[in-house]
């Protein structure tokens, strides 16, 4: 029974991850891409906690690791938003297709 539950959780995390990848590949808005990346980070968090709960209950690393991931994702987003804001002032857009100064 708990085995079935475990697989459900892992599949949820896999689906989240794939949604994230799909979002990164199809979005043209830089903020949208950033949000998709956040979803991917959360997929990893769910994975870690689920594995810890169902397979290695005695280990604490699966609980500690997500805390670091959440913190780092926040830091990364802060820097990312600053960079996106900086380019918005230049080209008045956050569409990645408009960023075409650098090519090949």
């Amino acid at each position, binding site marked *: 029974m708990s085995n079935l539950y475990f697989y459900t959780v892992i599949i949820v995390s896999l689906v989240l*991850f794939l949604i*994230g*990848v799909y979002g*990164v590949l199809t979005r043209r808005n*830089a903020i949208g*891409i*950033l949000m998709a*990346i956040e979803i*991917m*980070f959360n*997929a*990893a*968090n769910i*994975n*870690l906690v*689920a*594995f*810890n709960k169902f*397979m*290695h209950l*005695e*280990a604490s*690393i*699966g609980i*500690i*690791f997500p805390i*670091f*991931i959440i913190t*780092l994702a926040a*830091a*990364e987003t802060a*820097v*990312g938003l600053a*960079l*996106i804001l*900086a*380019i918005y002032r*230049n*080209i008045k857009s956050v569409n*990645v297709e408009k*960023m075409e*100064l*650098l090519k*090949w």
Partner: protein
Amino acid sequence: MTKGFIPEAIMQGLLALTPEVFVLCLAFFIIIADLILPVKSKRNILDIAAVGLTGALLLTIGALFQQGMYIFNNALVVDSFARFFKIIILVSAVFMLLMSRDYKALENNKIGEYTALVVLVTLGMMLMAGASDLLMLFLSIEFVSIVFFVLVGFVKKDSKSREAAVKYFLIGAFSSAVFVYGASFLVGVTGASSFPSIQQYLIAHGISNLFIVGLLLMLVGFGFKIALVPFHMWAPDAYEGAPAPVTAFLSVASKSAGVAVLIRTFLAILPDNSNVNLILALLAAITMTVGNLVALTQNNAKRLLAYSGIAHVGFIMMGFVAYGLFGVQSVLIYTLAYLFTNMGAFAFVIAIYNKTGSDDIRDYGGLSLVSPALAFVFFVFLISLAGVPPTAGFLGKLLVLGAAIDSGYTWLAVIGVLNSVVSLYFYARIAYFMYFAKEKKITEAIKPSLSLNIIIYSSLFMVLYICLLPEQFLNLAKKTVQLLTGSFHGY
């Protein structure tokens, strides 16, 4: 157990990390100095940082062959292998600070921030070289990436710089998300995050498919860091847009740190390497070929060096695919050669940029007439990049190819040799513009500043020295690999 205020284990760890602690203190010192110094004398902060990092470099060199050990609950390992890469990182950081001294695009009032970031990112890369725990690995890689996002976009007036930073950021964040998803499988399967514990688990339970999947996803993160081909898209853009000293730093230090973690991770937690190795070999072949072929049509010097850097990563991976004592040894020599060659070449790009304000290689015409000695030195760096004797690049390529053939990857070595021939063309193209171009764009003699001269001539010395008297470098690399701690294979 605990004597005094600080527990013994932590004290021991801090002692082993003396250079890192030193660099951290230096970073805080620079932030304070930035607040105190008047705007006019802010350029001196670069000198302070360069001197400080040289001190850390000497500390690291002094301890090079000390016995390796794990510290902080196996989070970090301090051994000769890590120290070797720390030396490469510190040398390139010092060179980079010297290059920044008279790089025109940097404004005086931003120098303090800039230097502090450079020193901090050096610390991050030093930690990366010694990481032996998935958590530590993730944290240090992110540390380095996030600071580099800022450094790449540092010149606010330049819209190319901003665009490069955004592109670098989006691809970097994506690949680190994939990396951490892969790491979550590794942690999940083994219930541990430090390499020694993962090793123990694998010895007891064997390797599972989920583990391999996790490792391959992690390869995306590593591949991004060292610009391996399917994940290299950021490199040319970031290199072209970033301020040239940052580009040089990014191409040498960040790449070597990436190579260091990649090698350590795969040696430490992959017992049977045959299948994964084939994937790495294919990636190496594709990386070399794509890097060299796209470089053929480039006209921007920084962009050309970016693609050439991608091709060089292919060669480094070829040495790594060979595994074993000889393989890793060849990687070390190749990285050392790449450090001095690339730094020398970038110093030239900056010297010419400072004079003419252009990075286009078609604007290099006439260089050989107005300053023939400099043109010749540049030529030496170019043939070292291409791997022609008597330069360090040649020795590196020779060893890497030898290692590949030695371990049965003859097809890979053949691709490597063919790529070398291709690469000769676009390096020679720069030399062609320097020597034979009809349009003489450069009409006055180029006089690099003292700091650029130091970089150029010390790099030239090392490039020739490594090739002509290779014995001690080979011994050094061999001893370094033998003292590598925590490998599955044990040399």
